[in-house]
């Protein structure tokens, strides 16, 4: 059964509702055993990376997530879920899961008219084709809310990018059975639901 990881970081119910809408019944769980046994795993999240990582560790979910990733079954990261799969984040100088080489940095613009957090609808540029993106094109817009952005080390992990101010940041990460988006696909209208639907059908 598909499982949504619950670690007190954001509205897991919104993700569950969107899953339901595309015909995927997903269970919300904070239990490492349930996470490890999932046939599909969704790792969402908003808010502070510091408390998120701490909660994951307290619940033993960090090891469960790593174990799940190693199983090779499909893993979908959303927003904070994308940031935490990297090795490190500048937010609170925190070590993360390290499933993907790279780190997160804070948006820092000299031009003060560029607002942080980056909130709203922005376009993605597809950098690398992927089965999850078969129905998505460059220029499609998704809903973002974040102040930190991912910088994966390996170019092949950057499936999509987005331009904000003078920064082109990685908005979609892909590595083996992991697919992660910086934007909230559960709040990105019909295109977001299309991606979720693709995840439902994705077999690695």
């Amino acid at each position, binding site marked *: 059964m598909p499982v949504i990881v619950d670690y007190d970081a954001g509205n897991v119910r919104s993700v569950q509702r*969107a899953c339901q*809408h595309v015909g995927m019944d997903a269970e919300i769980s904070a239990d490492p055993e349930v996470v490890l046994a999932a046939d599909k795993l969704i790792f969402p999240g*908003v808010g502070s990376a510091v408390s998120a990582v701490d909660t994951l560790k307290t619940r033993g979910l960090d090891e469960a997530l790593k174990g799940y990733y190693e199983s090779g079954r499909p893993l979908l990261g959303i927003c904070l879920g994308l940031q935490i799969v990297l090795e490190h984040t500048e937010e609170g100088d925190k070590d993360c899961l390290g499933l993907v080489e790279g780190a997160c940095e804070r948006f820092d613009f000299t031009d003060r008219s560029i*607002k942080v957090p980056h909130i709203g609808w*922005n376009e993605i540029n597809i950098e690398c084709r992927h089965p999850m993106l078969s129905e998505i094109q460059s220029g499609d*817009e998704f809903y973002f809310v974040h102040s930190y952005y991912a910088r994966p080390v390996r170019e092949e992990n950057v499936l999509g990018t987005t331009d904000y101010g003078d920064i082109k940041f990685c908005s979609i990460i892909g590595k083996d059975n992991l697919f992660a988006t910086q934007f909230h696909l559960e709040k*990105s*209208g019909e295109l977001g639901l299309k991606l979720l639907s693709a995840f439902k059908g994705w077999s690695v």
Partner: protein
Amino acid sequence: MLSKRIIACLDVRDGKLAKSVKFVDTKDIGDPVEKAREYYDDGLDELVFYDITASSDARNIMLDVVEKVAGEVYIPFSVGGGIRTVEDANKLLWAGAEKINVNSAAVKRPELIAECAHAIGNQNTVLSMDILKVEMSREFPSGYEVVINGGRTPMGLDALEWALKGEELGAGELVVNSIDADGTREGYEINLTRMIAEAVSIPVIASGGAGKPEHLLEVLTEGKADAALVASMVHYGDYTVSGLKAWLSERGVKVRMRY
């Protein structure tokens, strides 16, 4: 490049849609869930619900509306009106709202902003400000004053000072609502919007006064707003969301056109 957002504001009283004119007389114009769905299908970027229910025991009706909307639309929506505690905010988030708007209660007790930002995140904490134009003075250096209770109670607080304070306390976005312009359909308060948008580093949503597409163009360019709130101009069917977006796009405003 980030798109400018068009946000529809739905005033809800006892679970029904109402649109206030200068916040005094409100008349019922339909079902909020149905309306939300209609706008979603027409390309709306975001929704705001203001619960203007008078009695506190009717609050559960709002939670029910939120729950139903969350099952119908997959764009962000926020809820405001009567939020006094973190518990109120959490209930709304749990029911399916993406963000919460604090207003009067935050003016009376500013720590509410910090408490919400800490509990649910800055990005989910929106500070809504009702603002009245006043004589520029030592007390009101910006020439604008914060009011509460739907514009009836002046608070002796300078609007620009409050916007900066709200940002400092952890608000992730600001709604700048001009009481002078609200319901007039004669255009947003451009000077007020620009003044606040230039002073803060968080997104500013312009509110009050939208009546024609030109008003949106003006506030999103000259007014430097990141988003424009619309209400009666779309509620009564004079304009459609998709029509407004197409019009703005033709004039060089970046808006989300694929949906």
